[in-house]
């Protein structure tokens, strides 16, 4: 079990653009460096990348929700 944290505050998105499927779904394998989500801040989108490999479990924050730096956004199994 490992957590993926947001590196910075902003608005969290788990899809690459509106209407598209989420970056990861439950059971999918995750490699270190895979993009898990986007944080929007200062008119920029910053990619959140996995810091460890594993199997994707779930997002713990809804799409388009505010996040704080260090807040857990997804869990790996």
């Amino acid at each position, binding site marked *: 079990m490992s957590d993926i944290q947001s*590196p910075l*505050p902003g608005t969290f998105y788990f899809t690459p653009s509106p209407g598209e499927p989420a970056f990861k779904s439950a059971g999918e394998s995750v490699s270190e460096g895979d993009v898990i989500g986007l944080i929007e801040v200062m008119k920029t989108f910053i990619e959140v990348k996995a810091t460890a490999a594993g199997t994707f479990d779930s997002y713990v924050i809804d799409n388009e929700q505010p996040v704080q*730096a260090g807040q857990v956004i997804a869990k790996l199994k």
Partner: protein
Amino acid sequence: MALNIINPGLSTSIQDLGRPGYFHLGIPIGGAMDRFSMRVANMLVGNSEDAAGLEAVFMGPEIEFTSDTAIAVTGADIPVMIDGVEAPSWTALAVSKGQKLSFGFLKTGARIYIAVAGGITTPEALGSRSTYPIGALGGIEGRNIAAGDALPTGSAGAVTIGASVPSTMHRMPATPAILRMVKGLYWHRLTEASGQQFLADEWKVAPEADRMGYRFRGGKTLEFVDREQPFGAGSDPSNIVDGCYSYGSIQVPGGTEPIVLHRDAVSGGGYFTLGAIISADMDYIGQLQPHTPVKFEAVSMDEALSARQERHKLLDAIRSELS
């Protein structure tokens, strides 16, 4: 001596206290968004207060030192790491050749200031090293720092390693942040009820807020007094015949979302402004994260000037503390 940038973080820029004197030509004043923290970082490492340092926003950069020197980190509350070991902020720290500075996750505040003994000595543009990327002025060839940059530094003065500024002398916004303002020339454009509502509402920092302006949303849409549109103004009730904006002006395009113009703002345009945030509170805005609640409080010019005096006194007290 140089600072090798391993990871630049997000929009990390070289800033000093700015380049006042060109705003009438459309060149913004620039400089640190939280000038109080930038000054104190410089004081801690024996620099003149207007030396150039780094301003990082929401996340820290990773930097390697090419020789022994002293640094200080002020501003937002974020774990400071030297070779992975946590070190105190608001303190003069000795670092050795080859050591690396990095950061943990931001706790409170928004902007981190990093001063190095001797200051960063990139070329000045219009009297300042502050970075204004849109105008390609200052910084490194007019841009923010990037991985692989080696930032030159000047000769260090005397530094007292371990000197620190107690937390009672830091200056960070409350929650909700109270931003004091002086009503301006166009306040009369609002209905009385709408003016009161603006001051009563709680607003939240919009995620797009940046060095040009801090946008707020969540309060009620403003209501304007009826008028005949002046010749030359746009068709919206929030339009005016183009006028000058000051540092700290609060414009409200369409009457919906107030924007406080900050260090890299435009100098004029066709939106009315409610007034201006007092100079003593502009540093607070530089420390606001997205979604932070904010209230605007109207004060008199006398109150604005005494708040400025208080801030000057606090800086004087820190100078004495460190001398």
